[in-house]
């Protein structure tokens, strides 16, 4: 099979022998890992691909079966035993001891895996073995007939799942959900805590990319992954169970972290567990960053966040609150103060304006979204009138309108320049806001603030919009309708259209680079921003990516922690193999929205409970009530456990990844 180019990936068979593939470039999946290492071949949930004759599909399948034996959970018969029977048969073939019945055994058991295995690990692996037998039968027969040894290759294996791959922090969702199904709630929480140090927080407010990539939605609605996480976090709290966390001793180098937001806390959590002596500098009086002073309390009670931050402090992390870097502590204190690494996680704390005339002159009734929410969260006085107009279509805008209602505005209107369909805010949030009586004004945009002589807001001039051609984001661009301006009377206007990054703490000559939006520039997956006299300066979170999400911040902080560890241990930065594989898996798109899963649609997602509107808008009490045990177990039972196994055969030189430079 010297130079056979082959692919069965993506539902289409390409084979150089049959003339359907001319060269390696015809194979429809990326040929190199994100680290640059080229691949010779690959085997996974959707079939197999060979770019180079040095990859032998029979040996790849043997190694793939070995992987399945290793990762099979052992619960169902077709996979537990079938995988071993397949592995032993393929091993015999590879060792020149193949028997005539071996191919038929592999073929038959592959079919059993595909149709009869309990979860999708076994099911999806079955496809690769079936494809092997279908397309490489001659090679298998020849190896058995000639009793020829098949050359052994070097491979890398990766276990993933559609939900897991979509989660920025790659939580082991299938495992934690299955443990809930089995009633092992604390074990489930332990699994979550491996990749997420704020389970109760994220379990309440995550934007849940996992659920949008959950295969169960192809059947009858996604598994309620977010609320299940909340459930196990609450279980521990409600019962006052001691959290299962290690008690590390800080016996390694000192590391400084700027910002106790999600990214900073997450980095501290891992560094402390690795034994580093961590100090966090935080300008605010409390932890959580935007999760504390952005996300309002009715979505995320502050004590949940505080408790989870306390647990991180209990790992031996020193947090210095009310300490603004650039004022109370200088840049030099960080890079020359004995810290061997510095992690910048300052987020994007500045509210942005309307960019409409009048805002500079407004003396009362004009507040930027992030500032308004922060002041409310910190208990500072905010201007309260009768009518409030909030401008924007994202979650922050929704937070502003619902908060406005709770601080005492009587009529609150949200103005958005596109239609509801284009709103980036979570559909659930929009529905909650509507239920609370918020008025939505779509296809309108502010053009000017209307002020009285003293600078008080009297109203806002709006222009009507219509949707034109799609822009680069794929959404139709709103275009103003000339001459349609009118004034909407209001006492206050809050723009909630973004946050900006504040890098004021950095001296002019700091070697940290930022782009025109102040986003700190780092070396891709390595998170390294600069090295100052041997001190590694790393950064992640909103200050690198621009305003994003909590879970992305947690993931960035974790990745930075492991890079900092590598930098301090091995004096180099290099993405961990795990992340390289995660990135590659994402390129393969493990979730297929068009897939027919094949199970009947006879369940429905568990529903979260809400405190009645009249009660909840009175104050900042939590608006949602978590699942009961029964609801959690029932929902967890809907999970299809879509683990998938990927095997790649990297170019041999590429093995230098872990040892290179």
């Amino acid at each position, binding site marked *: 099979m010297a130079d056979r180019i082959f692919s069965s990936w993506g539902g289409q068979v390409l084979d150089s022998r049959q003339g359907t593939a001319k060269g390696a470039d015809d194979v429809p999946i990326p040929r190199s890992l994100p680290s640059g290492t080229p691949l010779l071949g690959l085997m996974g949930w959707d079939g197999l691909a060979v770019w180079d004759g040095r990859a032998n599909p029979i040996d790849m399948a043997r190694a793939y079966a070995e992987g399945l034996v*290793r990762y099979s959970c*052992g619960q169902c*018969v077709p996979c*537990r035993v*079938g995988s071993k029977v397949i592995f032993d048969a393929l091993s015999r073939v590879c060792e020149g001891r193949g028997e005539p019945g071996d191919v038929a055994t592999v073929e038959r058991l592959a079919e059993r895996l595909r149709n009869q295995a309990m979860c999708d690990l076994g099911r999806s692996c079955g496809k690769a073995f079936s494809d092997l037998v279908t397309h490489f039968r001659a090679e298998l027969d020849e190896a058995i007939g000639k009793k020829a040894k098949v050359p052994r290759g070097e491979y890398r294996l990766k276990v993933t799942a559609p939900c897991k791959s979509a989660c920025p922090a790659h939580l082991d969702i299938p495992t934690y959900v299955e443990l809930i199904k089995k009633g092992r709630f604390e074990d489930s929480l332990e699994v979550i805590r491996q990749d997420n140090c704020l389970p109760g927080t994220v379990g309440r407010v995550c934007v849940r990319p996992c659920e949008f990539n959950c295969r169960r939605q192809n059947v009858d609605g996604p598994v309620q992954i977010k609320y299940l996480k909340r459930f196990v976090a609450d279980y521990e709290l409600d019962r006052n169970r001691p959290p299962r966390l290690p008690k590390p001793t800080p016996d390694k180098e000192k590391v400084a972290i700027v910002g106790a937001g999600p990214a900073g806390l997450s980095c501290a959590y891992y560094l402390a567990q690795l034994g580093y002596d961590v100090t966090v500098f935080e300008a605010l009086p409390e932890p959580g960053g935007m999760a504390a002073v952005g996300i309002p309390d009715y979505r995320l009670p502050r004590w949940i966040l505080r408790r989870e931050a306390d647990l991180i402090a209990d790992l031996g992390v020193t947090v210095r609150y009310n300490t603004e870097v650039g004022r109370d502590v200088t840049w030099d204190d960080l890079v020359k103060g004995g810290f061997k690494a510095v992690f910048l996680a300052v987020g994007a704390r500045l509210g942005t304006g309307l960019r409409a005339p009048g805002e500079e002159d407004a003396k009362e009734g004009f507040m930027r979204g992030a500032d308004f929410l922060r002041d409310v969260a910190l208990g500072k006085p905010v201007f309260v009138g009768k009518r409030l107009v909030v401008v924007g279509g994202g979650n922050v805008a929704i937070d502003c309108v619902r908060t406005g209602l709770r601080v005492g505005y009587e009529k609150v209107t949200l103005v958005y320049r596109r239609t509801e369909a284009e709103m980036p805010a979570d559909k659930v949030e929009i529905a909650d806001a509507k239920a609370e009586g918020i008025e939505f004004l779509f296809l309108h945009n502010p053009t000017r603030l209307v002020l009285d002589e003293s600078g008080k807001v009297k109203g806002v001039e709006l222009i009507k919009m219509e949707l034109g051609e799609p822009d680069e984001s794929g959404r139709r661009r709103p275009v103003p309708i000339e001459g349609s301006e009118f004034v909407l009377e209001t006492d206050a206007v809050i723009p909630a259209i973004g946050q900006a990054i504040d890098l004021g703490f950095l001296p002019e000559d700091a070697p940290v680079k930022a782009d025109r939006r102040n986003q700190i520039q780092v070396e891709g997956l390595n998170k390294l921003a600069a090295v100052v006299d041997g001190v590694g300066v790393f950064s992640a979170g909103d200050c690198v990516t621009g305003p994003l999400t909590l879970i992305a911040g947690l993931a960035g902080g974790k990745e930075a922690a492991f890079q900092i560890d590598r930098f301090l241990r091995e004096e180099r930065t290099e993405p961990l193999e795990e992340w390289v594989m995660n990135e590659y898996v994402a390129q393969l798109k493990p979730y297929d929205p068009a897939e027919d899963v094949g199970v009947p649609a006879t369940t429905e997602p568990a529903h979260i409970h809400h405190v009645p509107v009249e009660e909840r808008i009175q104050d900042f009490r939590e608006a949602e009530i978590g699942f009961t045990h029964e609801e959690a177990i029932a929902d967890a*039972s809907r999970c299809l456990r879509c683990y998938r196994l990927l095997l790649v055969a990297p170019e041999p030189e590429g093995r230098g990844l872990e040892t290179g430079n």
Partner: protein
Amino acid sequence: MINVTIDGVRVEVPKGATILEAAQEAGIRIPTLCYLKKLSPIGSCRMCVVEVEGCTKPVTACDTPAGDGMVVTTDSEELREMRRDVLRLLLVRHPLDCPVCDKGGECDLQDLVYEFGVTAESYRTEPFERDVPRYVSPFIRQWPDRCVLCGRCVRACKEVKGVGCIQIVDNGFYSYIGPVPGVECISCGECLSVCPVGALTDSVHPTKARIWQAERVPTTCGYCGVGCQLELNVLNGEVIRVTTTDFDRAPNFGSLCVKGRFGWEFVNHPDRLEKPLVRKDGELKEATWDEALGLVARKLQEIKDEHGADAVGGLSSARCTNEENYLFQKFMRAVIGTNNVDHCARL
């Protein structure tokens, strides 16, 4: 209620009922192994696969909720072959132990293999050795190679007893039932009672007997007032085991505690009193029940006549049944005529 058609039979079942429950309602048997009514279904053995109209893949009846208008086929050559393959795969590492296995004659695996006419030769793995640590309870012997990993024991321990001290350890082919670190077994034998095969056996009494040799005498556990139902397995007049095979029987539905299941050996003890003793000339001598009871009645009457009924007090036992305790207090109140009656469980 929803309507489901199973093999052409239309039945009405409550929403949420599984396909298996609908089939039971229709009087149609679907072969199962890991399923047990009193446990949550997990769908791991894959014996109960059925075809559902409109679904591209077979589904497991035990853990799939039925849907309104669903049309199910429970038997076809393809399904039978899938079930046979489950059994063939189970036999890959299952020893030929039936002749010496405690479970022989009442083993779900033995029955299914027999029903489906399966032989062991179809699939094989390369030989391997392994060490498995001892089971969590000394009263139970574990035979890991006989285990079909149905997980019934694990679920029973967690769901029925709320203990959760066993789990599947290791991965894939090498999985076995092992301890959960830090959680202690209470030796209740729930796991033993639900194991469908001979992977967990009772290690209390050395004498073994086939199901058709020993007599199973249904009785009530004498340890406490709950009144658990159990079966004494009696061979040649000697108790050799306690079993529970009727999981529908109140009040314990097949569950027992360590005493009821394993603490019965005193029954066979030579020192155990089998006849009443009466002290004659300073020495306890065997007597008839009439003689002994007559003596007690006379003495009680004498005390009552001389000192009044309240000079007598009655103390009953937690090891009597509820009915016996009821009779006892009735006896004290109505016959002796005193309210001086209490129970050792209060001491």
